[in-house]
């Protein structure tokens, strides 16, 4: 194997054959190896075969046309076969998203779809459907001085410790041009996450939360045609459903036999964390209003 790069993310020491500048460098005994190699077109005894991914217990395959095929094995190894002419930043983008999520699933870590911040030693997750503004909100709170744990793929160690812990991912946020503008961030100085997308990577190294934090609350973001921002605690009965719904790539679990364990993890999180529905008006960021309402909540954590 060629020279290795060594990184630390999601609580794991990762040796990689390719540079991953989004991650923090740290030497150590490897937990996960990322290498180039041949990746099959299909998993022979796959339990699920969806449009671009397949899974069997301890095996996972993702195919991103024109970029790469990724194979994740036993929570320990990721093999990448790049497509002809694929750009490294594109290969990394899907590696750090769906592929890392599959790795976490294999390592029996609960993966929520959301950004997370630290407040006075406590962890808070912002979840909700794609496009609801999780990253933009995290970026706004980052500007206010809060610590960032993750942008989009949020790992939670739900079992085996006294209380569920959010595991820090890596110090980068992804922002669309209009969101960056709204935040007053000059996109001229930021790298695009892909050449063809008007979406940028924002490094948050100094505000990155290095250590896991106990998960205290989860805010589910949504919007609706209403005046002002509202926050409503979720009734106990609805918490589990909300956690399952906002699990990142829930379908990845189907093929890997992780559903009963996942359910148990959600039960633990539902016990330990408060969950709120946050609704803001449709048709705009309403970022200042959202931040000011949330900050009141965060102060009381």
């Amino acid at each position, binding site marked *: 194997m060629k020279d290795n790069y060594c990184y630390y993310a999601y609580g794991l020491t990762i040796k990689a054959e390719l540079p991953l500048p989004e991650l923090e460098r740290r030497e150590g005994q490897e937990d996960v190896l990322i290498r180039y190699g041949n990746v099959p077109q299909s998993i022979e005894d796959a339990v699920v075969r969806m*449009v671009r*991914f397949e899974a069997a217990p301890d095996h996972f395959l993702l195919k*991103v046309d024109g970029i790469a095929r990724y194979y994740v094995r036993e929570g320990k190894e990721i093999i990448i076969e790049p497509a002809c002419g694929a750009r490294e930043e594109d290969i990394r983008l899907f590696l750090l*998203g769906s592929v890392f999520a599959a790795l976490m699933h294999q390592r029996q870590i609960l993966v929520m779809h959301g950004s997370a911040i630290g407040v006075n030693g406590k962890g808070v997750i912002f979840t909700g459907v794609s496009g609801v503004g999780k990253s933009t909100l995290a970026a706004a709170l980052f500007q206010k001085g809060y610590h960032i744990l993750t942008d989009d793929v949020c790992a939670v160690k739900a079992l085996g410790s006294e209380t569920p812990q959010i595991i820090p991912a890596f110090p980068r946020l992804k922002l669309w041009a*209009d*969101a960056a503008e709204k935040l007053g961030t000059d996109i001229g100085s930021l790298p695009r996450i892909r050449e063809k*997308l008007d*979406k940028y990577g924002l490094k948050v190294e100094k505000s990155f939360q290095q250590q896991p934090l106990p998960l205290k609350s989860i805010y589910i973001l949504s919007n609706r045609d209403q005046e002002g921002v509202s926050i409503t605690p979720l009734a106990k009965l609805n918490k589990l459903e909300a956690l399952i719904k906002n699990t990142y790539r829930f379908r990845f679990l189907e093929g890997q036999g992780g559903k009963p364990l996942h359910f148990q993890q959600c039960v633990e999180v539902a016990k330990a964390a408060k969950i709120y529905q946050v609704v803001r008006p449709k048709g*705009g960021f309403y970022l200042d209003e959202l931040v000011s309402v949330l900050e009141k909540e965060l102060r009381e954590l």
Partner: protein
Amino acid sequence: MKGIVWLASYPKSGNTWFRTLISNLMSKSQEPVDINQLSTGGIASGRERFDELTGIESADLTFEEIDQLRPEVYAYLAQTVKEPLFVKVHDAYTYLPDGRPLLPVENCKAIYLIRNPLDVVISFSHHLRRDLDTTIELMGNSSYCFCAKPRKMHNQLRQQLLSWSEHVESWVEAPGLDVHVVRYEDLKAQTFETFTQAINFLGLTVGEKEIQKAVDFSDFKVLKKQEEEKGFKEKPSGMPAFFREGKTGGWKERLTEEQVEKIIDQHKRVMERFYYL
């Protein structure tokens, strides 16, 4: 039948109304279904389903890359659903550069809802919060799309609508696709009969009683009242109400002669074909 039933229409042509009819038809309840919990199978351009079935975040793909995968997402759905899945769609029936249709035909049928463009203009201008002349321009624009700004993240995938006429023709002439056209005006004037024809086209076995119940529970007044009481989550912001008037022929009072002429000029052939002229 199994598979996908595309509930296809240009915007503001009765799609939501038709979905409430279907939802009420499928519902066992003796109360009208909640307009905020319509049980139909979402919208074709929804991000969630795309991300879930591909395993890839659509937010990290270009419009073209997304379109390349969309046919496979729907083909997967059409093959795997055990009951007919009614999927709303505003995309025109278009083709990828390699010739594949964006929306597959296998295991799929389509109900195409069409409404007099003279009335669509008025409703659409409220929806978009644009003036009538701009809306008329957009309805005549062959490259008109929803959710296509490259600088931001839209809550739905990009949808190519084409012009109003092109939208209609793209669907009713889609090769190999079994399409049943429902005129909004017929649905309004003879709801029971028109809805029954659609049900028969789909080959659903339901009794007259159930159809009548669905018709009664989907009456415009019922929908409007629900919206007044509880709001409607699908209503765009800034619009006073989604269920506004729901009437036909409103254009006679609202459009100027020039506006009427312009619309007819743009869409004459298709309007004639569907008895609007």
